[in-house]
């Protein structure tokens, strides 16, 4: 098993147990701190650019072309992966898989730790995953791995992620990409 996460292997692997709630509108959360969105975006970009096997996990809400917003986001996420030098592993549905998933090609919310362990992922962005499954997956990852999780959420964020940026729509992703480019240049990556 990989190293344990910040909440350790506790019977309460949930951030709310530590008094954490999702950030208020216009703000983001880094570990336990509420910060400005831009500060969080810079930190997220830095973590993704400096961690081993950084990966983006796109979920069904962006993988499938069900709305104009989803189509725009798909283009931006592809660009984001290139800027962050990140791999992409899809969470294309939530069905349990028998006998087990192939962790090389997918991540499943019922056992997301398998993909993270197998690929030795140290930082990951969850984007386009429906709230309830993001919550389940982030709790498991939090308690079972040492992966720095980032919840890029179109709604109110996820307190179980190490970093969460809320209300992320297409224009916000475009802004994040610009910030990530700057950070990349600063880091000389």
């Amino acid at each position, binding site marked *: 098993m990989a190293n344990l996460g910040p909440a350790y292997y506790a019977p309460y692997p949930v951030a709310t147990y530590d008094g954490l709630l999702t950030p208020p509108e216009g703000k983001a959360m880094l570990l336990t701190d509420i910060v400005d969105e831009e500060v969080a975006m810079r930190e997220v970009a830095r973590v993704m650019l400096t961690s081993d096997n950084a990966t983006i996990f796109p979920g069904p809400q962006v993988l*499938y*072309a069900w709305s104009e917003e989803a*189509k725009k986001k798909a283009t931006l996420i592809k660009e984001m992966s290139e800027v962050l030098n990140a791999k992409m592993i*899809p969470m294309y549905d939530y*069905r*349990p898989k*028998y006998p087990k998933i192939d962790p090389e*090609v997918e991540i499943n919310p019922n056992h997301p730790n398998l993909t993270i362990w197998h690929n030795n992922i140290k930082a990951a962005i969850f984007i386009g995953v429906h709230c309830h499954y993001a919550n389940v997956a982030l709790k498991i990852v939090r308690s079972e791995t040492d992966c720095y999780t980032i919840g890029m959420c179109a709604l109110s964020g996820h307190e179980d992620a190490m970093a969460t940026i809320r209300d992320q729509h297409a224009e916000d992703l475009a802004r994040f990409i610009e910030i990530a480019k700057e950070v990349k240049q600063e880091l000389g990556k």
Partner: protein
Amino acid sequence: MSVDIYKINPEFRDIMPKDILDLEDNATWGAEKRGISDLTDKKELLEEHSLCAGCPEAAALRYILTAIPKPEDTIIVNSTGCTSLMFPHIALHTVHSLFGNQNAVASGIKRALTWRFPDKDKDVVVLAGDGATVDIGLDYTLQSFFRQEKITTICFDNEVYANTGGQESGSTPKGQVFKMAPKGKVFDKVPMWELAVTSGCQYSVKLTASAPKAVARVVREAIFIARELGPTYIHLYTPCILEIGLSASEGLWEMKEQDKDRFVSFKYVSPEAEEFLKQCKKEGRL
């Protein structure tokens, strides 16, 4: 909701597994005509499942899934039982209800969909075992018929509570002995297909899953009638081969035997439904 929810954004095609690409490219979403013949060369809506080898229920579910006229606009409501092991693997919307509640849940979903999408056909199909339909959920099932809810109810009758060790159900035939019913059942099998007629179903059919085309035809008819007129009911024999001591290859034989015995064909079609089916045939929908 539209069929677009199954279209992969081109930016992600290179990272999607072949199974999902195949589902987008070769499934029968949005096809005018779907049917049993699609099982041979189209991507199935159910490929893997965790039921026992040779289980007739798994075959029956495949026939049903190929017969659903608009899978992209269909919601399946299921209940606890062997069938609930398969539903997480189906590539369309399913809702798992509490044991026995399935027809109440389906009624709510249908009403909400009718209100939300007044110009679209949204089909709600209940798939539950005999325990959920005939015993624990009998009240909810019959009440949905009384209320003339526009849903299709399909009962997978294996005549036993199979995955809890073999207890008798209301649908078990008189005298049948199971592991957890050693004295044999003392009263007759509940004639659910007849109760469905008495309770106001527009269409009630009893059959086995021995003939795929017959199952598919009945399912299609039932869904079309439910859309326009009111509740429809299908009572489908899918024996539990383990509980009655058969091998994986003997399920079909058992169903064929029962075609001549307990499951000799029963079909009730209300006069309005009869007229409606004629119209559907004329329009080429059946």
